[in-house]
């Protein structure tokens, strides 16, 4: 039987209380929300936190709202809430695309936005989606809070800048009207982690050139889940198939996938390009209001 090693447990009801408990129990304590990554790791004894601080009742972290020209998403927001949010859909369709292919309904009912980002799995879809839309995250600690762009959030696989005693509380996405966004993913089976996935958010000028673009990539070893070189290339180029194909080529070239049972390196690199093109194509069509 897979059963975790012994640990302390407390239920927090506020951010302040969570931070107090983190301070009290030290660096081997872990915050638990949805628990869909942490609990299996504990049962396999790959993770052995000495204490769990349950934040499922920290209601102040559960919201989706627009404030200060930004979409603000509380860390405790469930995947299912992000999926179903009309407010999010109004501004960024990439999130419904992404959430529809994240795990399964049972996981989405429980798993949280903040938990997904902090787990920092290299194949995490939300990391790529948030990277594409230029999101930033709010991290709170005993000495106050700081805001970190998503492109500086990940330190490496399963590693972020969130330090011991700190809590990710919010994700912020700047609202920029007039664009389109989309997410595409190849998985071996519904609910599987991505073999590769790409998200794009794209804005065009009145002349039809790309005025701003974000490209996120999951599972292909892209630095900070982002195809930065392809983004740079695209700005100022016409939003055409030719430009997207070149952007895809650049994204593939700069990806750094590793072989595993989901596929060999050449295939994953190919997908990085192919899916970048498909995401850009869909985002551009949505920007033009051409695709439902």
């Amino acid at each position, binding site marked *: 039987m897979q059963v975790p090693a012994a640990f302390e447990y407390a239920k927090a009801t506020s951010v302040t209380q969570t931070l107090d408990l983190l301070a009290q129990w030290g660096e081997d304590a872990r915050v638990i929300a949805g628990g869909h990554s942490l609990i299996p790791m504990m049962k396999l004894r790959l993770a052995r936190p000495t204490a769990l601080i349950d934040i499922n009742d920290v209601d102040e972290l559960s919201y989706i709202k627009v404030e200060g020209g930004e979409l603000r998403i509380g860390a405790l927001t469930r995947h299912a809430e992000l999926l179903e949010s009309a407010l999010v859909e109004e501004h960024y369709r990439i999130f419904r695309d992404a959430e529809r292919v994240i795990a399964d309904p049972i996981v989405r009912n429980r798993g949280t936005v903040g938990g997904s980002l902090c787990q920092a799995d290299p194949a995490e879809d939300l990391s790529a989606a948030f990277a594409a839309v230029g999101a930033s995250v709010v991290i709170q600690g005993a000495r106050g809070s700081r805001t970190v762009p998503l492109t500086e959030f990940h330190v490496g696989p399963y590693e972020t800048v969130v330090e011991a005693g700190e809590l990710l509380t919010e994700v912020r996405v700047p609202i920029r009207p007039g664009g389109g966004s989309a997410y595409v993913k190849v998985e*071996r089976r519904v609910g599987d982690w991505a073999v590769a996935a790409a998200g794009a958010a794209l804005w065009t000028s009145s002349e039809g050139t790309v005025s701003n673009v974000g490209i996120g990539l999951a599972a292909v070893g892209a630095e900070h889940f982002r195809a930065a070189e392809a983004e740079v290339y695209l700005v100022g180029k016409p939003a055409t198939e030719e430009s997207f194909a070149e952007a895809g080529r650049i994204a593939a070239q700069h990806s750094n996938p590793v072989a595993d049972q989901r596929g060999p390196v050449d295939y994953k690199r190919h997908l990085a390009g192919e899916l970048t093109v498909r995401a850009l194509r869909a985002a551009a069509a949505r920007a033009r209001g051409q695709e439902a």
Partner: protein
Amino acid sequence: MTVTENPTPMGFGRMHRKEDARFVRGKGNYVDDVNLPGMLHGSFLRSPYAHAKIVSIDTSAAEALPGVKAVITGAVLETLSLAWMPTLSYDTQAVLATDKVRFQNQEVAFVVADNHYIARDALELIEVEYEPLPVVADAKQALAPGAPVIRDDKEGKTDNHIFDWSAGDKEKTDAVFASSDVVVAEDILYPRVHPSPLETCGAVADFDKVTGKLTIYSTTQAPHAHRTVYALVAGLPEHKIRVISPDIGGGFGGKVGIYPGYVLAIVGSIVTGKPVKWMEDRNEHLTATAFARDYHMRGEIAATKDGKIRALRVDVLADHGAFNGTAQPTKFPAGFFHIFTGSYDLEAASCNVKGVYTNKAPGGVAYACSFRITEAAYLVERMIDVLAFELKMDPAELRMKNLLQPAQFPYTTPTGWEYDSGDYPKALRLAMDMVGYEKLRVEQAEKLQRGEYMGIGISFFTEGVGAGPRKHMDILGLGMADGAELRVHPTGKAVLRLSVQTQGQGHETTFAQIVAEELGISPDDIDVVHGDTDQTPFGLGTYGSRSTPVSGAATAIVARKVRDRARIVASAMLEVSPDDLEWEKGKFFVKGDPDQAKTIQEIAMAAHSSLELPEGVEGHLDATTVYNPPNLTYPFGAYICVVDVDPATGQVKVRRFIAVDDCGVRINPMIVEGQVHGGLADGIGMALMQLMAFDEDGNHLGASLMDYLLPTSLECPSWELGETVTPSPHHPIGAKGVGESATVGSPAAVVNAVLDALKPFGVRHADMPLTPSNVWRAAQGRPIRTDLAIQ
């Protein structure tokens, strides 16, 4: 397939499953639900290495942990002569490793503790010193010069060879090949997969020191066979052993053999004097219990230019893992693989199967394979398409041209099987009509013009199920015949006792319906008892789709015996000669005077009453029988799969799946359809996603359900089922068994469909599973070798 307003039929027909009332209410009783007073919990320490010498094991810290009741190692078992046990293939298998470990996750030590948590904590306190050895992870390297010898426990063993087994007339086959216009060869892997039922394996053993009675609740498909094996191996008296197989959450052949966990639960109970529960987790189940397949096949097919197939020749390298533990009739080391000529009229065929040891878990026969007919059906159906590819022929036309014709039955195949009955062209034509075959080919051509790739795949299979004639088929000397007992109470309600054990097949309903058909007692009034060796007659259990062919026959026959007794009682009641009575379902009446009748219920009461019975006639109606099948039954079917493939990503979408099954007479069509649905999902899984590869160190790369993917409803289309009915001439009710048909038949249809879609890329073959990466690589002529780690 809606079953809303159907009254209970008096016999065959659709009806809800009687057992489902408890399952849908959460009132099933599985092994893990068994909780006995004072019960302890056992857990295994397993090997991280695939091949390593055990230098030392230190259990002292684990033993010192409060709550730990026993730590059992191979050395402890050696003192009881239980460190090794026989397998169902006359090999030996380590119960706990003593000299060395031979596959990753092999059982090394067993902790018995007050609860799971303590047991698991204690495992971490056991210190084992290993000396890693070179690993055989690639079956193709098992017989290479200098390959490490895995089974050096066997005296004089200097290589990893287990057996060579041949069937068919090689000389004649070679001659036909030499004189044929067209010869095509292909290397085809049926990869290692795992049945992975919802319920993992487990046992609760309860040894009563006072009475000497050992009760074992275990996840077994064959409770009687297990009891006898326990008696023979452990020297326990057989009448003091009771094996109870309660509700089983799926078996698919993975619960036929005896696992170290069952043995350790027993040893743990004997050592501690308390009941001991052992329940596997998913990782243990996937890595250490019976895998399936792992056949590296080279097929060669010989034909005329115009597509008349003449002969088939197959060489197989069979990866059996570290111990030869395949569960099949003992005289057939390659199972029924030599049925590989399938549904076709050939002049000759021959095969050779070479079994080898590797540093992987033992097993091989599981996952609804009908003793390796899955491999055989896949091989021939792939080879037909390979031939169609070379001849540029339509695969449906090629099959039609070569199918056995109805007039040829009973048909003896070139490798010696005697097919009982069939109308193959009718089944294939029906499937083609259902799918709209000719129209689909037009659509496919149109789509290709637009750069869209769709594929149509056909598979026609012949199964051989219901092992078996006991003369030919036994397991460890136990003949494959099964008993049945039918008891009719005074009020006309009945109890049927069976040796076979349901794992979800619906026995409590199907077998009640057989009795109902024979006696006219409602299925609602018949209780089916199974899964308890103290309560049921001996028999070999449920696997190889044998329950209906064997125990279904036994049930019909025992019911007919009851009817014969009822005739005598009725004749006494009506004061006529038994010969003057006529049977109509549910009653006997006097010939020519239908009003003079007695119902089976009236007869049952009279049989227990003071009624004077003829001299020499016993009272009551109860009867027993043992059924020794004269032959296998041979169900068959025609499957057609339609897929859409995106070659730029390698993604496959199964659009439609048509399954025409002929399993003879259908007892409960709803249950038959449910079994077909499940098997078709299995086929999608094996063809497209289930991947159990090993890296060069022998690490298992499919050790969780995140890595070993089972299909969901979203990968499955809405199945379209059809049927033809060709009764088995030798089965009392003409039924053939269907539990494994769809698993046997469907993988080839899916694979053939995907490869049909890839035909414009010049792709003739790629191995399962056709994951997106494999499809993408195949389209470029570089398919992935799926049994090894992807590089």
